């Protein structure tokens, strides 16, 4: 079963091809069943692979390779490598992916382009698997660009809507900014390492490879390369200043937001950093930058989340903010912790998005929380599961989010370049998270219904195909934290760190060590903040039957407005880049091209034109003057050749 690694990504590819070519004939639910079956099959294969990896020497497997292109010393192959970091991503992608595929069969059941939707979804999974399985940077880049394509297609799935195609285009272009940086990182790496392979002889992540590169002058760019990789990660994982596409991406169908824009694709940046952590650890400057950008993103996005009225926008900014925390963990040297948060976040954020999808489904497409309220009774399962998801993300003790976030906070305090100030800011993010999540829950589920009568009439709980995934994800959101319940050490309950043990060296070692009292203080502070702000928001908003805490006038105040307007990033970029860019391009075309470059030629043309008029009044039309020139040429040839022979 050497080929097993290849089977995993090829299953969804086959699903894509079938659905793309004959999906219309498969109809409903055939196309959806096929796509979902491919994902479950891939999940099963991933489980088998997981077993093989743990038994493999060095805990790493390689697939057979297939040379893609080569020239001179350059050789790039399609080749897969699987270690525990990859295996973890495989399980998340295929597992959560399969649940979301199943959910989509219910959610998209009224959609006319049903098979196209599932084709795109399978295509996404194929590229995502390629991204995490490739044994070299170029293969990873293929997946990297490919998930961008799938994201573009799915965001713009409802192509009649201009806002949707705008959002898809924006996502692709902003991502490409990161991709350009990533490409340059690849070129630099090739220049110094002479290979793109991660492992194997002289691989870029091996000691031998790094030593060779240092001998080749890698030291000069050892900070530049990680920074460029990080810029690439900022594009894909929506970090400042490239975060602007993710909120717009909510134009896509909600299951897509759950799968691509919460659980998997946006975590590719974190995966990239963890995969190449050997290069990051050599560059303390780059690490600091990662931590600062991550923390700033977490703060800015959380503050925006406080003021949004669109349920999906709240979740989108929450995702950006949580991703920021993951990068903060990476920057503190705790790559394994970042992956831990990737894992728990995948469960509870997918759950929350799918829950919001269930709400939107029931509301007939309505996403504005100001028109919801009081849905708890009508959507009991959705309510209960989302309640659990919210408990988890807020960091309420003993649920998954508590454990992973606590580790991040600990590392912000005591990890590489960690300090109390950083920890304080991260705690602030945590407080805001609890607040905006419970605000969202209260606005949606409690109080009085604020929608139209017709909407109220149609309110219904979603079908089992949608609620079953919610239930499974809710269970995972509760229990996945016990993979690394380190926070319990503070209260003297020492459970094993299964997760860290599993990842082993693939995600580096966290260096955070604090004494027992400090640890207890940190945990207590984070519990107090999480519980306090959750209760505060929940109770305040529950009392406000109209769902608003602030008066109209208060909402026009500076800070609220700033957060509501998303800190004006879009407007700023429009003024700074889009508008001047268009002006420059128009100027280049209208002035430089048509008058400058072209004008010169026109001028010369006119001159020669009048000259030839003088020479001959009979010769009008260019064919003749052209023929004349050719004739002159031929004469020249003959003359010079005669001269030449005489020599």
């Amino acid at each position, binding site marked *: 079963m050497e080929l097993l690694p290849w089977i995993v990504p090829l299953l969804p590819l086959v699903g894509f091809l079938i659905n793309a070519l004959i999906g219309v004939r498969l109809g409903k639910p055939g196309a959806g069943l096929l796509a979902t079956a491919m994902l479950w099959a891939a999940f099963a294969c991933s489980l088998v692979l997981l077993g093989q990896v743990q038994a493999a020497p060095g805990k790493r497997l390689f697939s057979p390779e297939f040379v893609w*292109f080569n020239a001179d010393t350059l050789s790039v192959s399609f080749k897969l490598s699987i270690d525990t970091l990859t295996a973890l991503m495989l399980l998340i992608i295929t597992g959560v992916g399969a649940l979301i595929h199943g959910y989509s069969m219910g959610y998209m059941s009224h959609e006319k382009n049903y098979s196209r939707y599932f084709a795109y979804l399978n295509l996404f999974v194929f590229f995502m698997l390629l991204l995490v399985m490739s044994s070299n940077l170029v293969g990873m880049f293929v997946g990297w660009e490919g998930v961008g394509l799938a994201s573009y297609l799915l965001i*713009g799935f409802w192509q*009649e809507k*201009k806002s949707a195609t705008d959002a898809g285009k924006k996502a692709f272009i902003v991502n490409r900014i990161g991709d350009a940086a990533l490409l340059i990182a690849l070129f630099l790496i090739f220049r110094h390492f002479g290979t793109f392979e991660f492992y194997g002889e002289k691989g870029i992540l091996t000691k031998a490879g790094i030593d060779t590169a240092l001998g080749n002058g890698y030291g000069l760019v050892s900070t530049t390369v990680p920074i460029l990789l990080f810029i690439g990660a900022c594009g894909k994982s929506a970090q400042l200043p490239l975060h602007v596409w993710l909120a717009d991406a909510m134009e896509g169908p909600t299951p897509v937001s759950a799968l691509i824009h919460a659980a998997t694709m946006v975590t590719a940046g974190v995966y990239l950093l963890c995969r190449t952590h050997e290069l990051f650890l050599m560059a303390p400057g780059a690490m600091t930058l990662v931590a600062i950008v991550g923390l700033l993103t977490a703060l800015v996005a959380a503050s925006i989340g406080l003021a949004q009225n669109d349920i999906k926008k709240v979740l989108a900014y929450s995702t950006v903010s949580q991703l920021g925390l993951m990068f903060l963990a990476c920057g503190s040297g705790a790559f394994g912790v970042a992956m831990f948060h990737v894992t728990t976040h995948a469960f509870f954020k997918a759950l929350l998005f799918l829950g919001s999808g269930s709400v939107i489904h029931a509301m007939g497409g309505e996403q504005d929380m100001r028109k919801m309220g009081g849905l708890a009774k009508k959507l009991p399962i959705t309510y209960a599961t989302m309640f659990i998801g919210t408990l988890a993300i807020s960091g309420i003790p003993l649920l998954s989010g508590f454990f992973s976030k606590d580790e991040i906070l600990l590392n912000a305090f005591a990890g590489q370049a960690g300090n109390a100030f950083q920890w304080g800011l991260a705690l602030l993010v945590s407080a805001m998270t609890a607040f905006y999540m419970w605000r969202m829950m209260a606005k949606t589920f409690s109080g009085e219904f604020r929608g139209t009568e017709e909407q109220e009439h149609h309110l219904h709980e979603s079908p089992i195909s949608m609620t079953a995934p919610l239930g499974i994800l809710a269970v995972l959101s509760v229990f996945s934290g016990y993979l690394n319940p380190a926070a319990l050490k503070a209260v003297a309950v020492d459970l094993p760190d299964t997760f860290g043990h599993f990842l082993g060296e693939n995600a580096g070692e966290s260096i955070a060590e604090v004494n027992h009292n400090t640890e207890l203080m940190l945990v207590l502070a984070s519990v107090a903040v999480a519980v306090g702000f959750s209760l505060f928001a929940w109770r305040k908003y529950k009392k406000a039957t109209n769902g608003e805490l602030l008066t109209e006038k208060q909402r026009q105040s500076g800070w609220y407005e700033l957060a509501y307007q998303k800190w004006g990033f879009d407007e700023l970029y429009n003024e700074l880049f889009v508008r001047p860019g268009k002006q*420059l391009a128009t100027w280049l*075309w209208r002035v430089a091209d048509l008058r400058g470059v072209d004008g010169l030629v026109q001028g010369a043309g006119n001159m020669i034109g009048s000259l030839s008029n003088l020479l001959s009044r009979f010769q009008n039309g260019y064919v003749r003057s*052209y023929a004349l020139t050719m004739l002159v040429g031929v004469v020249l040839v003959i003359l010079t*050749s005669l001269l030449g*022979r005489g020599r």
Partner: protein
Amino acid sequence: MSILTLLILVPALAALIVALAPQGATRRIACLGALLTFIASALLLRGMPGPDGFFEDSIQRSDWLPALRIQFHVGVDIVSTLMIVLTALLSVAAIVMPFKISAGKEKLYFGSLLLLEATLIGAFSSLNLVLFYVFFEACLIPVWFLAGSFGGEKATKALMKFFLYTVIGSLVMLSSILWLGFHFQSFSYIDIQHGLVKEPLLGQLGLWLMLGFAVAFAVKTPLFPFHSWQPETYAACPTAGVVLVSGAMAKLGTYGFWRFCIVLFPEASKQAAPLMIGLAVVGILYGAFVAAMQRDVKRLIAYSSISHLGYIVMGLFSGSTPAISGAILQMVNHGITVGGLFLVLGLIEEQTGTLKIRSLGGLWDRVPLLSRVFLILTLASVGLPLTNGFVGEFMILLGTFQNFPAAATLATTGVIWSAVYMLWMFQRVVYGPARSEQPLTDLKGTSQWVLGFFVVLVFALGIFPKTFLDLISPIAALAAPMENK
């Protein structure tokens, strides 16, 4: 008679027959001629390269004007073979595609396309410099006819520019050719190449001779700032003509750079590399920016070509083997992508009567197959991995980066700009609500087969480029002076 001679003669004769045959039969004769040429051209790929890379059984050398040492001397290596197969492929596609032709103009239309094919194949296979010059110039004539008789009002201005640019460029090249011919007492490419290896022309002289060639090719490619004939000419030509002009004739420029500048004058090319790469990079960015603001899809693709061909020129002059291999591969790729795009545009124009971006939109559900093919070609043009656009561009950028990091970095930002102008265009042309109730016909029959074949090529070249790279690499390695020294 070598198969090459046949390859030039068949389309030329077909053009002649088209001119004499009754109107009704023209399309069939033209299709037959183009198909035969394509099949024969594919046979070239089986050629076995000799020591200097030329396929031994392809060479034919016979006296033409002995007094002037001008011979009919043809022969191909892998690079020219690829260009010839590309030309033949695009010709078949352009001719077979069921475009509507205004009554009474069929002879001119098919005759010109076939003549263009014949002259292009002639130029790609010439091993005598004067013969090359003759074909190089002669391919302007069919373009002239196409633009002149189908372009209407726009054509006059376009043709004037086209004429001036090309003639000035070519005359400069002619002086270089003549100098070489008399210096080496032969116009044979092979003799001159051997001569130059034994006795390299160093310093100023080699540089000026090389630049003499370069000017002509810079116009043909076109390389910034010699490009302004191109958008006008594309706009004036019927779409089938543009398929050949953009897909194949433009490659005569990049092919020329490779064969006559880089291979013949490695030292001078190295000296001129900063200039050429500088112009190429300006062209990459400039073409992309100007493309973004175009209001007509044809002109948009014309400017985007300036950008794409800039990558090829950059790679050729970079002095790095991967970049040169990538550039040669990219010549084929660009021909397929841009040729396919123009075929799609031709069909859209026939359906809707316009290529003005503002008047288009809402095609996705109305012509689903055509729209999906358009999407795939758009993605190929943007250089998405696994399509043909990626590997060549990647190799060019990677290779160039090793010798000219700043230029390659600037050029790499092109991946952003190409996404900007292509996706923005695609959104406005294809997506959105339908503009009218008028029924449109989707791909069917011939058009479906032709474009289906292009889609297959897009992925085949994207996933299995190694087949071609293995053929190209030995030749590319010959022409990478910087690494050898």
